[in-house]
């Protein structure tokens, strides 16, 4: 297991009022993403536990693009990764942001 942490400034605050959301599953080639509204509104904290070693530069590129493109301000995101491809990671992060924006049901 490898752990990675990123503290990024996030220009846009995450929408909605939900306090947390979870998407994905821990499985080979997949990942679980927990989003909590527990960071300052202008930053995003991302902690990753991954089964795949040596992909730090790719993770950094993926999460930097994520906070640039999606409203992620105020979120603390925990990722439990089962060796997912970068495109799957980007998709799950985007899905997580959409889910935390949804009204509570």
């Amino acid at each position, binding site marked *: 297991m490898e752990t990675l942490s990123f503290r990024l400034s996030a220009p846009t605050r995450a929408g909605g009022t939900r306090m947390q959301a979870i998407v994905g599953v821990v499985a080979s080639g997949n990942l679980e993403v927990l989003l909590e509204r527990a960071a300052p509104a202008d930053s995003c904290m991302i902690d990753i536990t991954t089964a795949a070693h040596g992909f730090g530069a790719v993770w950094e*590129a993926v999460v930097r693009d994520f906070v640039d493109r999606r409203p992620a301000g105020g979120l603390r995101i925990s990722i439990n990764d089962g060796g997912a491809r*970068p*495109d799957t990671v980007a*998709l799950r992060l*985007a899905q997580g942001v959409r889910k935390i924006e949804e009204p509570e049901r």
Partner: protein
Amino acid sequence: MSDWGMQKAALGQRLAAGQQHAKGKVVPIPSLPAFLKAVIRSGDRVCLEGDNQKQADILASALANLDPHDVHDLHMVQSGVVLPAHLDMFDKGIARRLDFSYSGPQSARIARMLFGGKIELGAVHTYLELFARYFIDLTPNVALIAAVSADKDGNLYTGPNTEDTPTVVEATSYKNGLVVAQVTEIVDKVPRVDIPGDLVHFVVEAGRPFYVEPLFTRDPAAITETQILTAMLAIKGIYAPYGVRRLNHGIGFNTAAIELLLPTYGEKLGLKGKVCTHFALNPHPTMIPAIEAGWVDQIHCFGSEVGMEDYVAARSDVFFTGPDGSLRSNRAFCQTAGLYACDMFIGSTLQIDLEGHSSTVTTSRIAGFGGAPNMGSDPRGRRHPSEPWLKAGAEAAPDADAALRRGRKLVVQIGETFGERNAPLFVERLDALELARKVDLDLAPVMVYSDDVTHIVTEEGIANLLLCRNKDEREQAIRGVAGYTDIGRARDSKLVEKLRARGVIRRPEDLGIDPLDADRRLLAARSIKDLMLASGGLYRPPSRFRNW
């Protein structure tokens, strides 16, 4: 005076030798080894029918079990190297030289044997190219073929998997070669005559069907959201604007996703009747929902697909069928159709380099090409116009005189930026080059050359290479859809944005596609069982795909 009948005389000798072990045309199974020893000469050029799908498996194991002291140094000329026996005969020294097209399940072993010098490789061909050489410089002395049934005169019924057989028999029998067929059973009257009996010299009753591989079945349950996204991009960004009606699909999951999105996403875009009406394609089970929804006018097939026989027979308005009701496939004709009468080929690959060359060869596997390089190439002999062909030609050469400008076939490579085990799709240098160096080949085994490929589709977007005006633009267009691979992260972001402004690169958002809409619920069938239900029970999936 020269004797102009030497080949006929040699055939006469083979026939007489074989007759010692046969009753009429029928060779009993126990006599098969002695029969093969009698009719095959060391150094012969032999086509052991190994096709993309069906295999003359009984004849293959009998040939591989011969004593190399009796028969050796054969030159095998067959499209598919699929069964272990196909390579066992090289291990034993029965065969020495090989010319082929496709090696699928044997790809790792064939690579090891090439490195070990067990196989002397002629070339890796595309199907149509190997078939062409059967008539010029690789004509078989002996063809060992497979069919469903025969009558006592040797008339053969091949059933839905006709595949290569007519081509192999034409080249062998009319050039004084010997044709031996394995059949499941010998009957009084065959359901239809696929091969006339006077071209077939001997028949072996195997007592069981030939082996056939379900190569074109893709389980919808395994299709990922990213593959759905690439399929949405292809449909909205290529099929729709070019109006692609005549096409061929590869066998990967991306194109399976496209097939399953036609009745849902394609319908929503109003594309029914405007795209995907005519195919050169095997009967893919994932085509069932689109066919049932009335999308498809006509499909000509290279071969059949296990379990699709009854469905195809019940949809003769769409498929080519014989008077017996079952599918008539023909690989040579369908490859020709895919080359000349289709406006688009779209398929997956394993590696794409910075120029756009692509290859399915890795240093440890030589999978061969099958038909992809043929379908995935621009036919320079084409003369009939069509809307997509003319539009692509105009994009490539906007300033040329329209009446003198060649059109262009759309050759699309589609895939995710990272493949199995996180292997990057984009590379600085193809593994095929390393392989060519190691085995001392004149040509690296490239599947689609860069000057044929027109579009690359990944989850990051579409690169339209027709619109690139120089090498630098082309490289940045490829980097610009290469995602988080090393190639993608080393892009020149400014130039990539310029290319995007010109429409050379189109992102999902440029096409009005939200990646979050790439949902498995968009698939018209989400499992093999769904496909079976959509066919009204006519599709009978092989047991390995039944998980309910």
